[in-house]
């Protein structure tokens, strides 16, 4: 799916969603959810070369833990933003903020080992 067809599809989906919002808001939410998921899926599939190059760079610099942690945090960010935008789109701002809170906490948990590594590296430098 190249960019231009995605753009046209999103505008058509937005028009469908506004049409449905007047009569049946729940179907408007369904259309926007599926359209968001579809575009997100096609973008993600096009991103695989980016991940491969990132992994190669990670192996060249040091072991692969840091790059994979960064990629995991990226995945968590994408999913939580998808879910919170859908909730905010239907007017549930409270649920949207809770989903974002959950995403932040999970990213923090993912990056805890990196903090330890960082602190230990700094301490080694300071003790020189």
């Amino acid at each position: 799916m190249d960019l231009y067809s995605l753009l046209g599809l999103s505008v058509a989906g937005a028009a469908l969603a506004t049409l449905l919002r007047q009569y049946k808001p729940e179907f408007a939410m369904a259309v926007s959810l599926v359209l968001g998921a579809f575009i997100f899926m096609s973008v993600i599939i096009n991103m695989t070369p980016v991940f491969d190059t990132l992994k190669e760079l990670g192996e060249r610099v040091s072991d692969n833990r840091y790059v994979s942690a960064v990629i995991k945090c990226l995945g968590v960010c994408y999913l939580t933003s998808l879910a919170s935008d859908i909730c905010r789109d239907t007017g549930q701002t409270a649920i949207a903020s809770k989903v974002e809170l959950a995403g932040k906490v999970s990213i923090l948990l993912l990056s805890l080992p990196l903090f330890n590594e960082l602190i230990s590296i700094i301490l080694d430098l300071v003790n020189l």
Partner: protein
Amino acid sequence: MDIDFIFRIAAIGIIVAVLNQVLQRSGREEQAMLTTLAGLIVVLMMIIYQISDLFDTVKSLFGLR
């Protein structure tokens, strides 16, 4: 995940809206509400499978668990 899935959901929404109006005009509010509920359930069942394979793709690509 193909494009006409989105338009299928929009079509179901429009059909349910029209059915709802017809049923309400003819005095059957309960059936109107039930058809809306049925349409919603059908659409949600269709969506669940698409969302689940989206999450599987993301998990496999980003190496999340």
